């Protein structure tokens, strides 16, 4: 159990910075997910925490102890690798027992702990096998078993379920989350899958281009993204962005577009202060924060033409063509519009976002 503090950490590969001035504090016992696309520096960060990469500058602290110069074996962390990294020449039992043996545990402790871990992960019947005789999901459980058997200070999971099929992945998401709750050990979980991060983590650190974009709970990340990049990366289907003009002064400010003019809610006008001067902003609306209808519900509705309908089982995704762009709206499968027909979109203004047209930071 440990609080992990990452303080002003930089990582350079040659001249290229992979992690830029990262500051994160993972509270004791929490499940923290580092989320970002490939190449954003999330794996480098995890490897620095594990001690597998040199820290170019800055400090990493476990509780109050600076661990920069500790070898991986002295950090008391357990890691699950993307490719499981099982030892092919050892049985499942010996794979799980490895961390205990390396720390000189007695034979009876090893037996007890390995069997305990195997039981927790429901792999007791596999202990005698070798890794090449296991399926992907079983290998992944063995890798987790090897991590939990030692009761370390910190778990590091590096995209552990990325290689499983979709159904098993959904199942393992629940299992890993339950496991972390049961053990109560701090966990840092690296993933590029925003669904994994949103569904499992207590806190999410969103990274892009080596920089921390946002730190927050899943609902904060989803509902109040700090910039357009986070807003676009989190959420499936992705958020729609429209570049709009800003018109009006005082209380009567509205967003202008070729297809529509929508007034802001009173509270939002104040938040938009800065952008009013530039006269442009980017509006962001999630597909489920809009409703679609075939008749004009109000003056503020957006007029468009249906481009294509996609039925996604319980939902229908409608792509609507405006004059200069297309946006996607989520609706019910009963929606009767056909491609080519005119439709009207109503934005739920409690749930929309406005971002700066330049640097992309969020006004609200």
């Amino acid at each position: 159990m440990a609080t992990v503090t990452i303080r002003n950490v930089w990582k350079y590969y040659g001249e290229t910075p992979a992690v830029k001035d990262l500051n994160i504090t993972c509270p004791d016992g929490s499940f923290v997910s580092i989320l970002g696309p490939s190449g954003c520096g999330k794996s480098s960060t995890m490897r620095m925490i594990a001690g597998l990469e040199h820290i170019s500058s800055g400090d990493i602290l476990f509780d109050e102890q600076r661990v920069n110069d500790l070898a991986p074996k002295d950090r008391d962390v357990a890691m699950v690798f993307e490719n499981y990294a099982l030892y092919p020449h050892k049985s499942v039992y010996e794979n799980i027992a490895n961390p205990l043996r390396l720390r000189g545990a007695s034979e009876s402790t090893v037996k007890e702990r390995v069997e305990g871990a195997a039981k927790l992960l429901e792999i007791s019947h596999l202990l005698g096998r070798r890794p090449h005789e296991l399926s992907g999901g079983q290998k992944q459980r063995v890798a987790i078993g090897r991590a939990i058997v030692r009761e370390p200070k910190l778990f590091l999971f590096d995209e552990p379920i990325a290689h499983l099929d979709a159904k098993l992945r959904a199942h393992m998401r629940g299992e890993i989350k339950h496991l972390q709750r049961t053990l109560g050990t701090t966990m840092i979980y690296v993933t590029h899958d925003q669904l994994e991060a949103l569904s499992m983590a207590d806190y999410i650190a969103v990274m892009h281009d080596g920089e921390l974009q946002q730190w927050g709970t899943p609902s904060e990340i989803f509902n109040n993204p700090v910039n357009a990049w986070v807003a676009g990366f989190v959420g499936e289907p992705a958020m729609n962005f429209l570049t709009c003009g800003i018109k009006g002064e005082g209380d009567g400010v509205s967003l202008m577009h070729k297809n529509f003019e929508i007034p802001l809610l009173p509270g939002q006008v104040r938040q938009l202060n800065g952008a009013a001067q530039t006269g442009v902003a980017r509006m962001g609306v999630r597909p489920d924060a809009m409703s679609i209808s075939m008749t004009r519900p109000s003056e503020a509705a957006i007029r468009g033409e249906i481009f294509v309908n996609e039925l996604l089982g319980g939902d229908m995704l409608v792509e609507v063509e405006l004059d200069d762009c297309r946006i996607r709206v989520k609706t019910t499968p009963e929606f009767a519009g056909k491609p080519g027909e005119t439709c009207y979109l109503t934005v739920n203004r409690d749930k929309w976002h406005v971002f700066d047209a330049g640097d992309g930071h969020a006004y609200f």
Partner: protein
Amino acid sequence: MTDVSSLSGTSREVASKLFRARAHSVEVEARPRAEITHKPRKFNPPMPKHYYYYLMAPAIAILAFISLYPFFWLIIMSLQDVDIGGGEWIGLKNYTKLFTDARFIDGWILLAQYSVMCLGLQVGLGVTLAVVVNSSKYEKYLVTALLMPMMMAPAVAGLLWLFLYNGTFGWYHWVLQSAGILDSASILASADTAMYAIVLVDVWQWTPLITIIALAGLKRVPRDQLEANMVDGASPLRNFFAIILPNLYPVLLIAVLLRFMDNFRFIDSILVLTGGGPGSATKILPVYLFEVAFKFFKLGRGAAIALTLLIVTILLGKLLVRVFEKPQGGKG
């Protein structure tokens, strides 16, 4: 969706956008194809079995001429008392005499000593060198430098070392003498040290082979396993024995097999350096075989020794493969 005609005016534009990709592919499909003028020939028509034997016959004939004929002739020779002039059938006498031949027995013992020393040093040094080279940023240059001894013909290597070991002007002799290891006699001149001298030459020439092979093996040691073991709590040394070495076993097997069979065959440098002497101190079995067959021209006896050597080589090779192929470590 596909019924384009039922759509209204504007929607036709939409439809044309939607189906643009498809229209394009139709266009491609519609291009005229090259005329097919003949029926494609069947690739592997079934042929009667003797057809394949005819195809193989030249290869088998050549193989029989250069390999099988001498081999069977060797067996026949080993059952005869052969001199330059001709042979006389003596049955298994050549073999039975070997058991009472002290120099034959000594040859085996010396060969075992020589081979074990060579292999042990070469594998130990070779793997160590491979690890060093692998972690060096000058890897490319080091590999080139290491390859040089291997490029040399063994007899030339023998001459080179004969020069270096020379008791009057040999540089190594001078070094060893200055260090107090040797007295004024050359290392090759003493029955106690001559064996070490020939082992050193073999190690010098062939350790690079083990290094190169081990280096190739090191390249495919999975990095994530190493890292997992480090996080699990292994020191670099334990990491080497737990992960790197087991991953090297298959390639080391090949290296050891090659080298051990070479040790049983390559005597060029020994013949140049000591010729089996002083006394019989370095007369390992292949050297003795050379002496019997080509100095005394007891070809029948030589053939018997050669066959014995061949059989033992095959058996030992099989044994080595069995030992190395056994999965390492782990219980249950």
